[in-house]
């Protein structure tokens, strides 16, 4: 087909009528104060939040929604205050967060150990690959009934399911991160004579840090969801503790504002971990090292 020449299409000629004198009045003008304020990101987001809250309060008040179905914002805040002062919400939060922290730390350690074994030999890598591909899609909370048979009702079962929800995403992401470290970087490490643990700590971990951090974030997200679900099941199966149980118990006593207060606390803790703790880690490492923009 290459030697067939197509004739150029001839388009008819045409002439544009004069568009008149150019009007260059408002090419650039200083923004008004209001516009400048509206260009600040936090201001806009805060406004959205405020609007949502006002709409919530107005809707529940004007439409006279029964508080048993959907309480007003002010009721929720009052319930939150009461939760802290009367129902020991702070100790429930501590029960949840304490177990979460214990599970998270142990889970990270196991995940790190697994990926270290996997990176040191091909067979280890196969074992980890098979294990993670089998166990990663298994929701940790499905193991809870078994954990309750094995370890009884209590913190041990919770930590067991938390470990399951953290270890696999962390190990999987760390391992894929290690595997995709560029060959030149590896050679630099070998040139410096780094071996074994020093090779992993000084070269592989920083080079694969975006992937590791993603794994840690995913592990946190799964753990947080698993913990709340586990506490709900515990709450259903027996008397437990923790935030999930607080929500479940409030709802069972038809204290819906209390349940909303519990949800608000869950949102606040989750928001804090994702947008303060992890964001700061990102800023201090990935952004500073130029691996990720902003």
């Amino acid at each position, binding site marked *: 087909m290459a030697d067939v020449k197509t004739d150029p299409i001839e388009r008819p000629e045409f002439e544009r009528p004069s568009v008149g004198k150019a009007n260059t009045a408002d090419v650039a003008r200083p923004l008004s104060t209001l516009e400048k304020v509206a260009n600040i990101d936090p201001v806009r987001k805060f406004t*959205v939040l405020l609007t949502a809250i006002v709409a919530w309060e107005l809707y529940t008040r004007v439409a006279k929604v029964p508080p048993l179905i959907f309480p007003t914002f002010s009721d929720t805040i009052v319930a939150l205050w009461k939760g802290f002062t009367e129902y020991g919400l702070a100790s429930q939060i501590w029960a949840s967060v304490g177990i979460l922290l214990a599970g998270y730390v142990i889970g990270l350690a196991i995940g790190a150990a697994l990926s270290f074994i996997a990176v040191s030999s091909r067979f280890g890598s*196969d074992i980890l690959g098979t294990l993670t591909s089998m166990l990663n899609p298994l929701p940790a909370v*499905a*193991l809870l009934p078994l954990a309750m048979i094995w370890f009884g009702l209590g913190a041990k079962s919770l930590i067991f399911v938390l470990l399951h929800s953290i270890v696999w995403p962390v190990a999987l992401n760390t391992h894929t991160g290690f595997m995709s470290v560029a060959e030149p970087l590896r050679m630099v490490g070998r040139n410096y004579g780094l071996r074994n643990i020093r090779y992993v700590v000084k070269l592989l971990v920083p080079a694969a840090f975006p992937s590791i951090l993603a794994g840690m974030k995913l592990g946190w997200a799964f753990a947080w*969801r698993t913990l709340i679900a586990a506490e709900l099941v515990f709450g259903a199966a027996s008397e437990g503790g923790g935030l999930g149980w607080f929500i479940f118990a409030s709802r069972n006593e038809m204290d819906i504002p209390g349940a909303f207060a519990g*949800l608000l606390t869950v*949102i606040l803790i989750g928001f804090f971990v994702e947008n303060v703790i992890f964001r700061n880690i990102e800023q201090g490492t990935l952004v500073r090292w130029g691996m990720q923009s902003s």
Partner: protein
Amino acid sequence: MSATPASVRAEPVERPEFERTPLDARKIGQIERPLSVVERMWNVQVVRNFAVLLMFVVLWEAYTQIANVKPLLFPSFSDTCIALYKAFADQKLMAKIWFTLQSLLIGYAVGLVAAAVLVSLASIWRVWADILMTATAMFNPLPSIALLPLAMLWFGLGTASLVFILIHAVLWAVALNTFVGFQGVSHTQRMVGQNYGLRGVMFAVKILIPAALATVLSGMKIGWAFAWRTLIGAELIFGATSRGGGLGWHIFENAEQLRTSQVFAGLLMIILIGVIVEYVIFRNIELRTVRRWGMQR
């Protein structure tokens, strides 16, 4: 290392000269040899993975048989297989799986559509972008299972509550990833699209989605993972508070009656479905799109 001023020149270190005597080439031995059949087999990834799997199954069976572990605590592999067969034959496991998958599919599909609508609005108007970002920052860290007690109050016990929390599980993860992906599409590619005169939906379908597909897909995968975990958890709670259906309920019911081998059978089915979705469906989508287009290794 001490900081030396630029004007001071360090003398080069003189190393003594030396000469290597040539090695006897015969001592080196085999430099290259054809691999044996076993070695070649062992180099196939699938064979090794299968071997590892087989090893685990054998270890499991041997451990439970030799150590005489009580089947109430940890049933053997053969017991689990028999239980799986029985579950299909007697306990209507197929219907339970179908029940679970049905709610999952409905929730996932509606969640994806809702995410698409939100993201389109957010790409057109800045106010919607702000609303989307604020909402995802608030609701993404909220485990959707925590909404289940309220959903049961609003929608009653049944598929409606399940679908509601599934939508919540899928929507924010997908919307966040898609929007961030869209924002990361390079200006050059956008301008190419504008040059072609693409606008609105066509612009999104032909330029934004292909360019951001890696992020969109990872959002869809995370959304699936959250939905799957939420659904099983929800069915467990349903099982605890009232009669439900589905795989989670199968596990809960059998654990309550201490039929541990049935619990293992249920877990095996959950693993199987998860593996199929992640390693057959999503892997194939990735192979055909982002990997083929060279966006991902």
